[in-house]
């Protein structure tokens, strides 16, 4: 990592990316009513522009962007830093938050005057989650990253319970408890590192850290805390009811983005803050948990009778792919870039799938898979978006992770990925076959479905399918090589 005090000329873009959604939250709360929606939509447009500008600057200069807050250099002050990984995740977040917002306009249209609680809550929580995501992707101080995680949790948990039913409140409470346990473990590790090394700046810590018990115990506490927040098997129990019970726009954000932030922080911790600390046994352990998640989540997704639960269990499986990065990156391979590309492709596909499932449930009045017969004729675009999103998850396109595993001679991870692809194909084909089936009473539209929302889901599914073809690995390496 570069010296933390070396600020970049375009570094002002980083606090701007953080401030935009935060100001949006404050304005939405103050203005309320329909104006909250307008504030959020304006923030989405501006924020997407800033995220693209950050990524373009990182790409053009070939260096990480750095901003030193208040011109106080670490360890006294803090810095914001955007390398290629951060830039890619910032653009993905801005794009998908905007897509969820556009989709949610119909479901959370506020009253013309006065306060509508659910719409106001939706827009402010969406902006809060976005602020937390940006803080997690840009932070380079471990305590700031803890604050980002907390912001994310306290935005995401109420999003789960927006429906207000007893089941969603239970799911939200379980999510909150898991997230808080994760936070406590993370904070304990942060305290240990500060006591041992006197700094929490990622770049300074990387230079000072020694292979000693204090650093290793801190790494264990922080990693397990982050695994609980990322819902990696066997700590995934909170995820399916929480993600399946939320409104579709919220489910999309939770599944696509919120669980990626803890994964991103495990990457920051293992590769940037505490380099050289991981042992092959620990890396293989994370890989085994990832492979178990792929198989376990895939089998349970095949077994579901409800579309939203199927997509939620698919997320449990897909998180597993990300953790294969750790045993593979140990071999000095481009596995890290492969993992981030996988995270971005999954985020796009999962948003498309949750949005299309929301439209199918709205159109048919239910999301039972057995009741989908004939749905392909009633809702062809939504089914196409679901199918394309699913096909992109199967992994037929070239995969950097798979190639890296083969090059490293670690064929067992390739076997896990192929098994995951087969299970994904099984649950996607099952839904599509049922939707095309003529057996049983044909599905009839109970409510109109807006073509614009169907096309939005379809566009995201197409993007998910094509994103692996983009030269993302060049961007992802920026700011990470000496």
């Amino acid at each position, binding site marked *: 990592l570069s010296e933390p005090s070396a600020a970049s000329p375009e570094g002002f873009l980083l606090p701007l990316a953080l401030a935009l959604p935060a100001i949006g939250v404050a304005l939405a709360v103050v203005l309320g009513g329909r104006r909250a929606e307008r504030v959020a939509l304006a923030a989405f447009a501006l924020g997407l522009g800033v995220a693209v500008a950050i990524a373009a600057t990182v790409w053009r200069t070939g260096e990480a962007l750095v901003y030193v807050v208040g011109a106080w250099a670490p360890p006294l002050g803090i810095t914001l830093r955007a390398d290629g990984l951060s830039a890619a995740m910032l653009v993905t977040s801005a794009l998908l938050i905007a897509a969820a917002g556009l989709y949610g306009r119909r479901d959370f249209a506020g009253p013309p005057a006065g306060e509508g609680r659910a719409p106001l809550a939706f827009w402010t929580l969406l902006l809060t989650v976005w602020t937390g995501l940006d803080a997690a992707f840009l932070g380079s101080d471990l305590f700031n990253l803890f604050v980002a995680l907390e912001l994310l949790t306290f935005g995401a948990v109420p999003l789960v319970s927006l429906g207000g039913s007893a*089941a969603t409140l239970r799911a939200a409470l379980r999510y909150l408890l898991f997230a808080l346990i994760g936070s406590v473990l993370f904070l304990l590790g942060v305290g240990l590192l500060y006591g041992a090394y006197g700094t929490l700046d990622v770049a300074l810590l990387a230079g000072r850290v020694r292979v000693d018990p204090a650093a*290793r115990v801190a790494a*264990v506490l922080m990693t397990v805390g982050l695994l609980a927040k990322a819902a990696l098997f066997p700590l995934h129990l909170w995820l399916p*009811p929480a993600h399946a019970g939320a409104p579709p726009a919220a489910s999309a954000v939770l599944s696509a983005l919120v669980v990626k932030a803890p994964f991103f922080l495990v990457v920051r911790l293992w590769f940037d803050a505490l380099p050289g600390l991981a042992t092959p046994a*620990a890396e293989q*352990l994370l890989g085994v948990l990832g492979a178990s998640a792929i198989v376990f989540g895939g089998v*349970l997704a095949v077994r*579901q009778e*409800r579309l939203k639960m199927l997509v939620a269990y698919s997320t449990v499986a897909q998180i597993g792919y990300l953790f294969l990065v750790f045993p593979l990156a140990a071999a000095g391979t481009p596995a890290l870039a492969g993992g981030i590309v996988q995270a971005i492709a999954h985020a796009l596909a999962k948003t498309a799938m949750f949005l299309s499932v929301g439209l199918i449930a709205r159109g048919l009045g239910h999301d039972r898979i057995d009741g989908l017969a004939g749905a392909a004729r009633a809702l062809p675009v939504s089914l196409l978006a679901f199918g394309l999103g699913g096909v992109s998850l199967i992994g037929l396109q070239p995969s950097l992770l798979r190639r890296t595993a083969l090059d490293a001679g670690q064929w067992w991870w390739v076997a896990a990925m192929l098994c995951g692809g087969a299970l994904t194909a099984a649950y996607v084909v099952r839904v599509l076959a049922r939707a095309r089936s003529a057996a049983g009473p044909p599905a009839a539209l109970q409510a109109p479905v807006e073509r614009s929302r169907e096309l939005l889901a379809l566009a995201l599914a197409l993007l998910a399918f094509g994103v692996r073809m983009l030269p993302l690995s060049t961007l992802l390496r920026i700011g990470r090589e000496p």
Partner: protein
Amino acid sequence: VSRERRAAPRWLAAFDALEARLGSWSVACAVLLGLLVVLGAALLAGC
């Protein structure tokens, strides 16, 4: 949201049983502690 499941062979139903077992708070806490110990052992092995 319903957690209905399809009828399945016994080996497949074992996944449901494991899922249900993991759902209890006592087992979840044990899993968390187990992970701390196992990952700790894997990392501290190099000290």
